[in-house]
């Protein structure tokens, strides 16, 4: 009688007993034999060029698995969420073995990354040497904490047909000249549209170069002294205010990264700063607009011509359980056969930082992309000429330089905006 009560499922006690017994039985089943196959997980941010990601999954990963038997797990995270994803992996110590870095992650996570100087050295030697920009992007206290992959250049995109209407056949050489052309084009209802809001790339792509081309800088090369309050900065700010007022749509003050692409395809603007995505997209979806879209290097200021180093690199997490396999994989990935194919599939959206690719066939596919290659000798990380540091990352994340220019364009005085940027930087660099 007792036995029936305790084990029959229709009584409450019976049900609980059966459930407990079942759970114990399930948990005590011997674990399946550990998989002999090794896996390397690579984290990448979703590329604007879809074929680029597909190339890894469909071509590179299967090829490597065939050669070595190691599975490559290509994890893609949405645009803008790379810093968060890497933070999680670095903090928890698991989740991926190799990570793609944007322009700030090498400095922020350098301590969790393997020193890959030997691999990078060999690659550089074999493929024509690294651009200085490559070194700038990955050196942390003299150690190579990542293998440079590419720059994603942010350059001038311009409408050849509308520029021709005001008599301009070649893209202007200087900011002042561009300003004059812009005035004429705005009068003809074809204004410029440069991002001045809180995006990730299209704002940095022209505002830092603008500052540098007038001789301004946030912090001195010693990495400690805040030098933003200078005549050079004031001249850059004054220019930016006039440039905005005379040539641009008012709305740019609130633009984020997608806004100028949208505006271009809607034929709202005649000039902007962007990666190659506008031309790439226009050629495929809006061929008529694609025909009249051209690209050019940033205009020069009194102190030179500059571009943003929007670097992409790959790092190996030092806590990865498959360190040797990851190192071997990186060597394989960066060999000309794999690397060349991977670069080529994205046209030249990713500009190689190895001199060996200066005359690669990928550049002759679309001659309008050549300025992105020519810009590689004048690219710098935001915060230059100070070395990369966590303070630099804080300044970028807080939009110090962006808001300085944007507030001036919105009407604030040059003195005020520089003073407030200086106060912010002094606060950020107090611990430098």
């Amino acid at each position, binding site marked *: 009688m007792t036995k029936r009560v305790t084990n029959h499922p229709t009584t409450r006690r019976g049900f609980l007993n059966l459930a407990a017994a079942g759970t114990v039985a399930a948990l005590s089943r011997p674990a399946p034999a550990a998989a002999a196959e090794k896996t390397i997980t690579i984290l990448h941010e979703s590329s604007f060029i879809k074929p680029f990601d597909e190339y890894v999954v469909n071509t590179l990963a299967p090829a490597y698995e065939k050669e070595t038997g190691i599975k490559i797990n290509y994890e893609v995270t949405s645009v803008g969420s790379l810093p968060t994803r890497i933070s999680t992996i670095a903090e928890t110590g698991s989740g991926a073995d190799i990570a793609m870095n944007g322009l700030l992650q090498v400095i922020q996570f350098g301590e969790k990354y393997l020193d890959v100087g030997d691999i990078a050295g060999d690659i550089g030697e074999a493929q024509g040497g690294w651009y200085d920009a490559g070194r700038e992007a990955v050196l942390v206290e003299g150690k190579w904490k990542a293998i440079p992959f590419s720059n994603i250049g942010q350059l001038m995109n311009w409408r050849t047909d509308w520029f021709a209407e005001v008599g301009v056949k070649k893209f202007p050489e200087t900011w002042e000249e561009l300003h004059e052309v812009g005035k004429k084009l705005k009068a003809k209802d074809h204004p410029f549209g440069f991002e001045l809001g809180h995006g990730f790339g299209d704002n940095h792509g022209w505002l830092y170069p603008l500052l540098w081309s007038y001789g301004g800088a946030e912090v001195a090369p010693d990495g400690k002294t805040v030098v933003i309050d200078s005549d050079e900065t004031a001249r850059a700010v004054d220019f930016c205010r006039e440039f905005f007022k005379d040539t641009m749509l008012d709305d740019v003050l609130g633009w984020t990264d997608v806004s100028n692409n*949208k505006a271009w395809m809607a034929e*709202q603007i005649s000039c902007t700063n962007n990666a190659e995505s506008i031309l790439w997209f226009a050629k495929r979806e809006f061929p008529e607009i694609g025909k009249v879209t051209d690209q050019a290097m940033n205009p020069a200021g009194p102190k030179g011509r500059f571009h943003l180093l929007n670097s992409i690199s790959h790092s190996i997490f030092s806590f990865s359980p498959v360190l040797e396999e990851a190192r071997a994989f990186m060597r394989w990935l960066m060999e000309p056969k794999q690397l060349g194919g991977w670069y080529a599939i994205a046209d030249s959206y990713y500009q190689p930082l190895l001199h060996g690719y200066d005359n690669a066939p990928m550049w002759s596919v679309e001659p309008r992309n050549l300025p992105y290659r020519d810009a590689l000798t004048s690219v710098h990380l935001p915060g230059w000429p100070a070395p990369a540091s966590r303070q630099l990352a804080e300044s970028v994340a807080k939009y110090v330089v962006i808001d300085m220019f*944007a507030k001036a364009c919105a009407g604030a005085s040059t003195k005020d905006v520089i003073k*407030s940027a200086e106060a912010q930087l002094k606060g950020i660099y107090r611990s430098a």
Partner: protein
Amino acid sequence: MIANAARRRAPLAVLLDRQSVFAWLMMALPLAFLAALVGYPFFYGILLSLQDRPVAHVGTFIGLKNFQTDLHDPIFWQVAINTFVYTGVATALKMVGGLCLALAMNQHFRMKNLVRALLLLPFIVPTVLSTVAWLWMLDPAFSVVNRLLVALGWPKPGPSWLGDPTLAMVSIIIINTWRGLPFYGITLLAGLQTVPPELYEAAAIDGAGGWHRFRLITLPLLRPIILIVTLFSVIFTFADFQLVYVLTHGGPQNATQLFATYAFDIAMGAGQLGLGASVALAMLPALALLIVALTIYLRRD
């Protein structure tokens, strides 16, 4: 025989039969859940805010230095003002609008249930999706509002909703109100339906007009519900993140930067987890005061 049977009952069963023990046992699981998913992050956040903690580095205890840094950061003050203005105005609009909505929905008309269901849509649609739709609506080049205004004589291309700092704040308040009205409306509607119709009938017999009936019967009886809904709404709006992140990411020039988005930029963008935690925790005093004030007000009734 009976005595034997009583002694044979297991001591555990006797214990469980006591209501106090049983009650705590039932609460144990939800309490554990809360402790793990709410309590632990909260206390860890306080710990973080007292440290200099760059991401992927070991933290060093620095006491209240992060909060000092915040107090000297002009952006922090702008963020505080933005958040209070955003919460205050949006909540006021939602309260009034929600009440009107509830009163209207309380009437009888054909397709009443369908309309009630449709009205819930802004609240149910994921914020990120609806905000992206608003992004298109607020772009002067594509905005239906701007088209209308320009047709009525406004200089082309119409107001820059996300480029002008004031208009950007107006925009996020409008979108938040649009999103939150159904929450207020449906909850207040539920409250309205608990008001006994005899009270209205008695008041009508006594000669009270519509406005008097509303002011002297509906409002007092609805007050507890209005307060509860306001409490929830204020907490959600104060800590709002998705709307601002997708629409403007805090721009233009930090005009729409809120505590949550600023804390995220500092913690995840700059990699300063301690400083970011201190900004997020800054929300606590204001919210705590509000909750205490509202609870006292409620208890008084």
